[in-house]
């Protein structure tokens, strides 16, 4: 009887948990990422050059109400105000770019001037070009770069073709790209044992499923 009563209270709770606990979302923006790691002549990394292509629905939404001389076509100048909005908004989210070198986190400065948006009329997609300079250039044996939205409102994925380039890197540097992987059975089970709002610090699911660039320069 006690158990049944508790069960019933639990049922109410589960109902509430289903409704309230699952405060998670699906993305409304998809971004295809192409990145370049820029190296100084002395072999240190100075920054990341991003080219992010938005999906067509979001691109069209972002262009809503924007004036252009030629209908359906937008020049870089016409898109400049939008690029400003983009870059300013992205600041709040650390540009969704996370880098580590030799085990430590790297800090970025705000993008250099010269960022811009391009509009591809044929595919009706916008691409944002911007460069994130590192606060301090770093010589790294092991460098990792990840691009993801922890809150998953934006879905990032590396381009199929040439997702990453090393610009001016020492010859011995090797690049590898890890794409979001399928969840293993073990991790899946580990997650299912957590409550809906619990977090296990040993699990770094966000990073696990992120797009990751690894550069080794022995």
């Amino acid at each position, binding site marked *: *009887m*006690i158990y*049944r*009563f*508790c069960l*019933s*209270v639990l*049922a*109410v*709770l*589960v*109902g*509430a948990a*289903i*409704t*309230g*606990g*699952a*405060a*998670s*979302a*699906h*993305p*409304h*923006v*998809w971004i295809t990422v192409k990145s370049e790691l820029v190296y100084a002549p002395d072999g240190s990394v100075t920054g990341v050059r991003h080219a992010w292509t*938005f999906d*067509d*629905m*979001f691109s*069209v*939404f*972002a*262009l*809503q*109400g*924007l004036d252009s001389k030629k209908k359906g076509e937008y020049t870089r100048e016409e898109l400049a105000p939008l690029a400003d*909005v*983009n870059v300013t*908004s*992205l600041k*709040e989210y650390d540009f969704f770019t996370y880098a580590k070198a030799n085990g430590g986190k790297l800090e970025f400065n705000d993008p250099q001037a010269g960022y811009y948006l391009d509009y591809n009329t044929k595919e009706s997609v916008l691409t944002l070009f911007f460069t994130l300079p590192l606060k301090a250039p770093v010589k790294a044996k092991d460098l990792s770069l990840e691009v*993801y939205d*922890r*809150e*998953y*409102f*934006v*879905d990032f994925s590396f381009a199929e073709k040439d997702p990453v380039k090393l610009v001016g890197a020492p010859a011995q540097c090797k690049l590898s790209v890890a794409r979001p992987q399928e*969840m293993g059975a073990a*991790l*899946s089970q580990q*997650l299912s044992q957590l409550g*809906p*709002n619990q*977090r296990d610090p040993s699990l*770094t*699911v966000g990073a*696990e*499923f992120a797009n990751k660039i690894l550069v080794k320069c022995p």
Partner: protein
Amino acid sequence: MSVKPVVGGRPVVHFALVIAALAGLMLVAGALDAALAQGGPFGAPRAQAPAPPMGGVLGWIFAKQAEFYRQFSSLIRAAKADGSAAWGLFGLSFLYGVFHAAGPGHGKAVISSYMVANEETWGRGVVLSFASALLQALVAVVLVGIAAALLNATAATMKRAVDLIEILSYSLIILIGVRLLWVKGRVFLTTLRTLHRPAAVGAAVTPAHSPHGHGHHDHQHDHAHDHAHAHDHGHAHADHDHDHHQHCDGHAHDHAHHHHDHDDHASAWGHAHAPEPEELAGPGGWKRGLSAIVAVGLRPCSGAILVLVFALAQGLFWTGVVSTFIMGLGTAITVAAIATIAVFAKSWAKRFADTRSGYGMLVMRGIEAGAALVIIGFGVLLLTGYMVSERMVGL
């Protein structure tokens, strides 16, 4: 249903009370935790939270809705080339709506909590769900129709409009929660005081056996509940607006009085309880539901706005409008289903609580007051930006 006699029922009830109290806390804490996991997009420090759940049923739901959403643009393009493709778009809109409501969004959370706090009938839950979902679709259509189609406003302007609506909607949610807490909290305290009177303790006798279900319970409990009954009436008169949602326990008695017919008891226990016309249309019937409908339905779905703007750009605004309303229909079905679960879970809990005399009633009152707290919690978290149910991305 066979109910075993319980000896020493009071410790058990105390135990149950503790559970109920913990339950309320857990709900609030849970909401908080989920919120922190979501982080603060408005400059608040973000926790080192992992990405959204990717496994299990939820992961599947998220994957599905993302997959459906991704197909919108190509289907709208297809509909531009060939009108019959619009049917595919409408089908997709429906599926997206169904899945979308199962994911994020404060709508179903608030409606379910509202249902639990009010001991609403199943029928009213369905009406609330549909009305709020349709209002949500309407707001999206009106917003895009006026802002984008008529005024050629920019995406940034629409985002600001949505932000304003959001603030209004979340403030309303808090107001509803505060009002409910005021009513339910007082009832809870009154019940608590009543229980500490000797007469009520004496009435804490558990029925021995009832082979024929609930009708029997009713008669047993009419006496045990007498005190609460009297108090309910007091409140009902003090506050006309809330008269009708004093359903918990008082429900059976209220009805008996309205109808002067004791056979009504069987339907008065929450289950198999069809919405009665007088409840829906009676004084305060629609009015009190309206606040919840508006609070929840005011904030348009970001996805719907994007779809509408995209359709507009393709010269297919009206196709987008139909698609938005079908999306709303799908959303309503899911929200109604979840609200139904909440209502039946509560009436199930009540069935056990009722066999426990006045303390059970106290538990129910506690759950109601707790649900009101949860509504306030949601409202505050949403308003302060600690919980984001959807983000109008301003990239």
